[in-house]
C-alpha cells in the first residue's frame, strides 16, 4: 500500500525526516526519547542537588538498624529491637494476611449476593440491590473507619470479661468480643497432633483426587459415581478417627478470664484494626464481586440452560456442567482484578493503625529515619511485584479459557 504513495527511492533529503512517512516515525521517537532522557536528567540533577543540600544520600543501610517500635499484630517474631527490615517483613506478611482473608470473605459474600440478586424472591433481590448500591457508592475508607468505630465504641472492654463473676460471659465459652479485638481459641498441638494435621491435609488431597477421578470416569464412560457424600467422608473421617485413636492430641487454648487482672490471656487475639480492615474490604469488594457474578450468570444465554434441560440433565447438573463453566469464563477475570484491588486497598490499613507494609515501612519507618525516597520506592516495588504477578496469573488464565474459534 505504501509503495504506491511513497516517493521513489532516491537521494535522502533532510526534509524527508518530517514529510516522509517512512522516516517520520523515527523522528518522532527520537524526539520522544530525547525529551524523556532530558526529563530524567533534569529530575535526577534536582534530586542530587537537593540531597547534597540536605546532607542526605540514597542508602538502604537504615534497614539494618533497630526499628525501636512495637507491632501488636504480627505473624513472626518481632521485638522493638528488631531491624527496620524485620518490621518491613512483618508488614508484608500482614498485608498478605489481610488481603487473603478479605479475598476469601469477599468472594463468599459476593457470590451469595450476586446469586440472590437474581433470585425470584422480590424482597431478597431488592435487599441485595440495596446492599450492592449502598456499599459500592460510599468510599471504602469510610467503611473501614465505620467498622473500626463499631468495634471500639460498641463492644465492651476486655475488663468486662475478667474475674470470677464477669459482666459478660465468653461466647460458647471460648470467644470474647472486646473493643481491642476478638479472642478466639488457639489450637495446641500435643504429641501426635502433627500426625492428625498431616492426615487431614492428605485427606483433602485424596478428596480432590477422588473427584477428578469420578469426573474423568463420567466423561470417559458415562458412569456416574456419587460425589457429595464420599467427598465429605474422605475429608472428615480419617482425621476424626486419627484424632481419637491418638488420644485427642489437639487441645484448644481458650481465653482465660482468671489468669490476669487487666487483660484476657490465652487464645489468639485478632486485633480490632485487622477485623475492621478485613470486614470493610470484604463487604465493600463483595458488592463489586456480586455485580460481576450477576453479569456472568446473565451472560450465559437462556438457550444454553434450555438445551441442557432438553438433553434431560437435572437442574443442579445443568448448573454445574453447562452454566457455571461458561459463567466462570466471564466472572473470573474481573474477580482477579477485584483481588488486586483488595490488595491495593489494604494499604488503607494506615487509617486504623493496622501494621501492614504501608503503615510500617511507609509510615513509622519513614517518619523515624526520614528516608522518604528509599521507603516509598521499596513500598511501590512491593505492590508492583504483587500486581504484576497477579496480572500474569490472569493472563495465563485468560489464555487457557479463551474460546478457540476457528
Amino acid at each position: 500500500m505504501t509503495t504506491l504513495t511513497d516517493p521513489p527511492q532516491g537521494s535522502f533529503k533532510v526534509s524527508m525526516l518530517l514529510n516522509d512517512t517512512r522516516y517520520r516515525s523515527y523522528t518522532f521517537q527520537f524526539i520522544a526519547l530525547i525529551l524523556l532522557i532530558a526529563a530524567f536528567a533534569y529530575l535526577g540533577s534536582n534530586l542530587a542537588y537537593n540531597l547534597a543540600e540536605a546532607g542526605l544520600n540514597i542508602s538502604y543501610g537504615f534497614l539494618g538498624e533497630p526499628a525501636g517500635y512495637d507491632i501488636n499484630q504480627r505473624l513472626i517474631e518481632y521485638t522493638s529491637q528488631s531491624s527496620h527490615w524485620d518490621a518491613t517483613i512483618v508488614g508484608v506478611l500482614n498485608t498478605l494476611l489481610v488481603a487473603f482473608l478479605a479475598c476469601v470473605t469477599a468472594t463468599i459474600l459476593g457470590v451469595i449476593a450476586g446469586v440472590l440478586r437474581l433470585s425470584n424472591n422480590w424482597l431478597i433481590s431488592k435487599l441485595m440491590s440495596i446492599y450492592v448500591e449502598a456499599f459500592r457508592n460510599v468510599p471504602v475508607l469510610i467503611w473501614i473507619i465505620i467498622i473500626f468505630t463499631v468495634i471500639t465504641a460498641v463492644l465492651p472492654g476486655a475488663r468486662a470479661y475478667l474475674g470470677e463473676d464477669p459482666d459478660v460471659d465468653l461466647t460458647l465459652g471460648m470467644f470474647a468480643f472486646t473493643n481491642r479485638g476478638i479472642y478466639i481459641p488457639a489450637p495446641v498441638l500435643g504429641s501426635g497432633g502433627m500426625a492428625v494435621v498431616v492426615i487431614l491435609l492428605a485427606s483433602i488431597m485424596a478428596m480432590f483426587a477422588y473427584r477428578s477421578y469420578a469426573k474423568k470416569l463420567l466423561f470417559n464412560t458415562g458412569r456416574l459415581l456419587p460425589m457429595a457424600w464420599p467427598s465429605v467422608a474422605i475429608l472428615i473421617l480419617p482425621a476424626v478417627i486419627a484424632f481419637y485413636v491418638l488420644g485427642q492430641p489437639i487441645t484448644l487454648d481458650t481465653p482465660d478470664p482468671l489468669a490476669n487482672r487487666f487483660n484476657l490471656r490465652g487464645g489468639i487475639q485478632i486485633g480490632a484494626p485487622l477485623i475492621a480492615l478485613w470486614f470493610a474490604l470484604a463487604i465493600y469488594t463483595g458488592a463489586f464481586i456480586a455485580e460481576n457474578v450477576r453479569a456472568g450468570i446473565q451472560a450465559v444465554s437462556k438457550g444454553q440452560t434450555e438445551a441442557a434441560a432438553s438433553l434431560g440433565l437435572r437442574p443442579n447438573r445443568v448448573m454445574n456442567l453447562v452454566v457455571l463453566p461458561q459463567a466462570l469464563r466471564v466472572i473470573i477475570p474481573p474477580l482477579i482484578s477485584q483481588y488486586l484491588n483488595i490488595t491495593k486497598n489494604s494499604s488503607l490499613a494506615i487509617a486504623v493503625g493496622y501494621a501492614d507494609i504501608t503503615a510500617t515501612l511507609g509510615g513509622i519507618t519513614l517518619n523515624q529515619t526520614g528516608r522518604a525516597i528509599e521507603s516509598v520506592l521499596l513500598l511501590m516495588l512491593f505492590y508492583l511485584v504483587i500486581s504484576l504477578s497477579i496480572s500474569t496469573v490472569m493472563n495465563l488464565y485468560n489464555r487457557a479459557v479463551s474460546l478457540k474459534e476457528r
Partner: protein
Amino acid sequence: MSDTHAHSVAYVRETQLPQQPPPTIETGAVKWVRQNLFNGPWGSLLTLVSLYVIYLILAGSLPWLLNGVWTTSNIRECREVLDGATGGCFSVLSERWNQLLFGIAYPSDQYWRPTVAFVLLIAALAPVLFMHLPRKLLIFTGLYPFIAFWLIWGGTIMVPIVALIGVGVGYAVYNRYVADSFAMGFFGGVAAAMVTWWLGGFVIGAMPGFIALEAVPSRDMGGFMLNMILGVVCVSLSLPLGIMLALGRQSSMPIIKWICVVFIEFIRGVPLITLLFVANVVLAYFLPPGTNFDLILRVIIMITMFAAAYIAEVIRGGLAALPRGQYEAADSLGLDYAQSMRLIILPQALKISIPGIVNVAVGLFKDTTLVSVISMFDLVGMIRGPILASTDWNGVYWELWLFASMLFFVVCYGISQYSQWLERQLATDHR
C-alpha cells in the same frame, strides 16, 4: 353429521359458557405475593429472614433517626436533652455543617463563592451530560474553569482573564495552521498561549487589586468542597491525558508505545496512597531548589496521573473494540493520523468507553477521601480531625459518618444512574 351425533350423545352444549374469573390465588396481589415472596419453602424462609433483618435494621435506626436532637451546641447538652432516650445528636450537623462542607479555614463570609461555583458547575456540566441541550451552552462550559478558579481561590479577576486570553490566542493560532499540519497547529498554539501568558503576567502584576475577591490560599480549602475540587479537576484533566496514553499504547512506534506501557502499568500497579506519599514527601526532592508549590497542586498532579492510567486502559478497550475496517476506511479516505483519530476513531471509541470512564470517575471521586491520610482536611479528615477530636463533639460518630456516607452516596449513585441512562441513549445498534 350433526344429526347422527345428536342421537348418539345425550347432551350437547349449544351456548358458550361465560368466562370465569381466574381463581383468586392466581390474580393480582395474591398471585404476586405467592410468586415473588412465598415461592416454595426456601423462598418463604428467605422472605421471613429478610423481613426479620429489615425489622432489626428499622427497629435499631428509626427511633435514633426520629428522636434526633438538632439544636444543641455540644454533646453534653445533647445528652441532657435526650435524657437517656435513644436518639441521634444531629446538632453536630447543624452546628458544624460549614466545616463539613467548606473546611475549617475558609472565611465564613465567603461561603457564597464555592456555593455559586457549585451551582455553576451543574450549569456547565448540563450541556456535556445532555446532548439535546443547545450546543451554544458549551461556550459557558468552556468559560467555567476560569470562573470557578476565580470564585474559589479569589484574587484579581485579571488572572483568569489573562489565562482565558492565552487559551483564545492559542486556539486562534491552532485554527490558522491546523489545515497545514496538526503538529504545526498544535505546537504553534501552545507557543502562542505561553507567550500571551508571559506577557499577561506583567499586566497582572501591574494591577493586583482590579475587581479582586478576597484571596483564599489552597491550604484553607477543606471539607466536602475539597473532595469536589479534587474529583472534578482530576477527572477533567485526566481525560485528555488518558486519551493520549491510550493512543500512545496503540501506536506502532515502539519507543512511544513502551513509554506509555511502563507508565500505565506502573501507576496501575501501586496503590493511590503510595502516590500520595510521593506527592507529600518525595516530590519536593525532584523539583528545582526553592520551588514550593502547594500540597493541593501536588496531590492534583498525582491523582490526575493515577486516573489517567486507568482511563487510558478503558479507552484502549474502546479502541480495540472498534472493527479494523474503521481504521482502514479512514486511511483509504486519505486522512492523516491526527485527522483519522479526531474524526473517525475517537468519537466511536469514546462512545464505547463511556461506562468505563464513568466507573473510573466514580472510583476516583471516592478515592479523593484518601487525602485525609496525608493530613489534608477533606470531609473524612475533617470528621476524624477537628470535629471528633474537639471536646464539644467527641463521641458523635454515627451522625457524622452517616452524613458523610449520604453525601458520597448521592453523588456516586447519581453519576452511575446517569451513566446507565446514557448507555441506553447511545445504543445505536438495534439488535
